[in-house]
């Protein structure tokens, strides 16, 4: 039933798309079929896999770094008042700096390099991850903390068995929103200063006014992210919440 509804919804989307393409003409909005053929052609040449792979690698690296640092900073700021006082102005600054400014400055200061690109993405994602984890760290159960202290659990044990499970809903929320944010920023970074990747291809297609290719790359990458969500994020969430009593 659920699946049928989903499929019906997707079919409706394709129908709307097709109808609009008939009115707008293939130059402005190519039909689903034309985009599908373009995806196949790009896949055959190997360009699609290469560009998707490059972009995905950038997403993976910058996402991991931002989440790891965000967890550390968020925990520190949520637990230690001094860290919160010192870190908060930085956080406000980073949260309110437009993504584009961070990217442009990174390229100006560090050149059109991979490091600059990744650093720009990390700096965009980091404050959001930090804020979310900080909320989680503030909500940590003091009773369990005391229990761990009384039974003299090691730091590592406390982190792994007491703290991280409590943070997992916050980490899941940060990952969810983070993943979609990161891949969008990676595309801008690629568009502005990288010689490959989905963002770069879309930039080229924009200059040639090639809407078919823009849609082909965008949809292919959405499919990749959907697969990541379905086969990595969701099973992980199920695993960490296996202890919750199921509501019938």
């Amino acid at each position, binding site marked *: 039933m659920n699946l049928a509804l989903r499929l019906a919804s997707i079919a409706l989307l394709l129908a709307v798309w097709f109808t609009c393409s008939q009115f707008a003409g293939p130059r402005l909005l190519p039909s689903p079929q034309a985009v599908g053929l373009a995806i196949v052609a790009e896949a055959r040449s190997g360009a699609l896999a290469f560009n998707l792979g490059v972009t995905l690698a950038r997403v993976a690296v910058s996402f991991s770094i931002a989440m790891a640092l965000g967890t550390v900073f968020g925990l520190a700021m949520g637990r230690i008042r001094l860290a919160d006082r010192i870190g908060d102005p930085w956080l406000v600054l980073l949260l309110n700096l437009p993504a584009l400014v961070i990217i442009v400055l990174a390229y100006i200061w560090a050149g059109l390099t991979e490091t600059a690109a990744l650093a720009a993405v990390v700096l965009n994602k980091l404050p959001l991850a930090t804020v979310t984890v900080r909320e989680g760290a503030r909500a940590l159960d003091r*009773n*369990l903390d*005391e*229990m761990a*202290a*009384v*039974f*003299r*659990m090691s730091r590592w*044990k406390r982190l792994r*068995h*007491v703290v991280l*499970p409590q943070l997992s809903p916050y980490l899941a929320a940060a990952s969810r929103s983070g993943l979609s944010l990161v891949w969008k920023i990676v595309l801008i970074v690629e568009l502005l200063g990288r010689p490959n990747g989905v963002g770069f291809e879309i930039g080229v297609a924009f200059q040639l006014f090639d809407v078919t290719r823009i849609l082909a790359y965008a949809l292919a990458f959405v499919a990749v992210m959907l697969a990541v969500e379905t086969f990595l994020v969701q099973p992980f969430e199920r695993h*960490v919440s296996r*202890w*919750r*009593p199921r509501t019938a």
Partner: protein
Amino acid sequence: MSRAGDQERLEVHIKHKSYRKASGGELQVLGALSIAVASGEIAALVGPSGCGKTTLLRIIAGLDSDFEGTVRLPAHGRLGVVFQEPRLLPWRTVEENVRLAAPQASDAVLDGLFDTLGLSGHRRHYPGELSLGLARRTALARAFAVEPELLVLDEPFVSLDAELATRLRAELAELVARRPVTTLLVSHDVDEVIGLADRVFLLTGNPARVAADVPIQNPRSARTADEVAAIRNELSRKAIAVPV
């Protein structure tokens, strides 16, 4: 007054303990008080609700260091604590909860504990699937599994029905009989501790002081109903004699 076995004694000397009130000013919770519990002895702290019993336990357990006085724990000070709430990790099973607190406990010891406490069938259950009674038992198993040198129990039977509380008390007595451990048991209910304790400290409130230190000579297993009644009378007389 140095004696053999002093190493194993719990000695607490508090001069003063107060909280800062939200409205400013200080609220004194504990006055000058001293308690000493010999090795293997079960001591009960009995007093009215809100008289500072839990505060005293938290100081002894090292969870509150903001006080004037000294606490000397027995031997290496390995603690087993049963809090008022079970305080289990909801994302770990019953067995994992116990093993995380007591990584050195052997399978045989755990089997014995789970068996005595009727938890054998629940080892793989998560705390969310347990009743309060079972969760309390898990907390008890965890405290015993660390083979503590000092066992601290903060009203471990509160909000259980009378029958279940009686059964749990019997299980606790059995565990202590099997492996004697210096124990501090907090309760607001004299009846609750009378069958268990070797020594009762009556506390008065605001700020808390020791009103009476009543040793009970006869061993637990040999107490008759008459004796228990006599002890109860003595305790209630002392409790009344002290202005609260």
